[in-house]
């Protein structure tokens, strides 16, 4: 539906003061004719429909008033104070989001292309424009909530671990799990809806603890003087069983949502369970390998630093 209304706050002169003004009706006819050109449009109705082309619209507003007064239900196009009118459009678009988006954009282009009298506002509403706005909001919310959650969690992890690399290390399985979850949602063709659009932030929040437990336990063993292999062989079974138990119960809880009658809630349950599974897998299988690689990398970097320092000292002695 397109709403055409007069701007009541407009202070310009020689502007329409009644929506039945010839300039407004002519604009309606032009807009209607433009919209009718769209192949998907099956029906358009407005106060301009009875004139068929702009040339048929009388120049005298009184004549237009008389025409509408004579037509049965002619007044139904206008509000009580004749400051607004509407145009109804029917189109066969199916339920494809893309088609609806394209159609709404085309209608907006048609509105832009038609010359509008001063102080006349033309706005669209109805199911497709609402869905379009909703889609933009969902996209924004998804990226924004996930981004904010990721930044805050990473900052807290760096603060807790008092090391940037260790913070990133705990954070890595989260990012891996989240990437896998979103990727699998895409491959499985599961749509994200109002209920599931916040899963990114939820998964990040729920999965953080697994990585912390594992890294902390491994560090404990290393502080006891154990080498990498011994520390990992001790840490992973001791804390891993707890992490698996905790993750599995969380997953089962979310999977129970599959029994809900609302598909929206079912999708929420399955995506959250998938997210927890991915983070669990990344923590148990991938994270230990990354911990070892990070340690080896730091050890090598320290060795290189020592070498450079020794070379520097030798060079100074020789001089």
């Amino acid at each position: 539906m397109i709403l055409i209304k007069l701007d009541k706050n407009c202070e310009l002169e020689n502007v329409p003061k009644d929506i039945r003004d010839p300039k407004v009706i002519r604009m309606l006819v032009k807009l209607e004719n433009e919209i009718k050109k769209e192949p998907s449009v099956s029906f358009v109705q407005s106060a301009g429909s009875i004139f068929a082309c702009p040339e048929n619209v009388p120049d005298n507003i009184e004549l237009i008033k008389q025409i509408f007064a004579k037509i049965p239900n002619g007044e139904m196009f206008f509000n009580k104070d004749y400051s607004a009118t509407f145009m109804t459009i029917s189109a066969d678009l199916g339920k494809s989001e893309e088609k609806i988006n394209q159609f709404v954009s085309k209608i907006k282009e048609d509105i832009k292309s038609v010359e509008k009298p001063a102080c006349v506002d033309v706005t669209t509403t109805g199911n497709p424009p609402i869905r379009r706005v909703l889609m933009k909001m969902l996209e924004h919310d998804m990226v924004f909530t996930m981004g904010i959650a990721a930044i805050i969690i990473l900052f807290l992890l760096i603060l807790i671990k008092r090391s940037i690399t260790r913070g990133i290390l705990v954070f890595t399985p989260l990012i891996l799990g989240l990437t896998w979850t979103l990727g699998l949602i895409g491959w499985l063709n599961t749509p994200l809806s109002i209920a599931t659009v916040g899963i990114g932030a939820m998964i990040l929040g729920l999965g953080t603890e697994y990585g912390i437990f594992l890294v902390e336990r491994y560090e404990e063993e290393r502080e006891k003087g154990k080498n990498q292999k011994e520390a990992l062989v001790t840490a992973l079974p001791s804390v891993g069983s707890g992490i698996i138990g905790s993750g599995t119960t969380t997953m089962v809880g979310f999977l129970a949502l599959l029994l809900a009658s609302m598909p929206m809630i079912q999708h929420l349950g399955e995506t959250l369970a998938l997210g927890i599974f991915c983070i669990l897998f990344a923590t148990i299988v991938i994270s230990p390998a990354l911990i070892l690689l990070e340690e080896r990398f730091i050890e090598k970097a320290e060795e290189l630093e020592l070498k450079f320092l020794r070379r520097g000292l030798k060079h100074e002695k020789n001089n």
Partner: protein
Amino acid sequence: MEILKNLARFQYKYSFLIFTITVLLTIVIGLGIQNIHLQTDISKELPQDLGVIKLQNKISDSSEERIL
């Protein structure tokens, strides 16, 4: 848990291989992100076997849907 001990030994031995496989796996699965689509049609998120929804779907299918 013996299985986790064996896993830890495997991770120690093949940590770089695990890292490489993870990168490749993440790239392959991550490509699916492009296929993510949003569902803004609330009617599709309602139980499709309910009488009122069935009737609504029938009406929408058999006639042109007034969409704007």
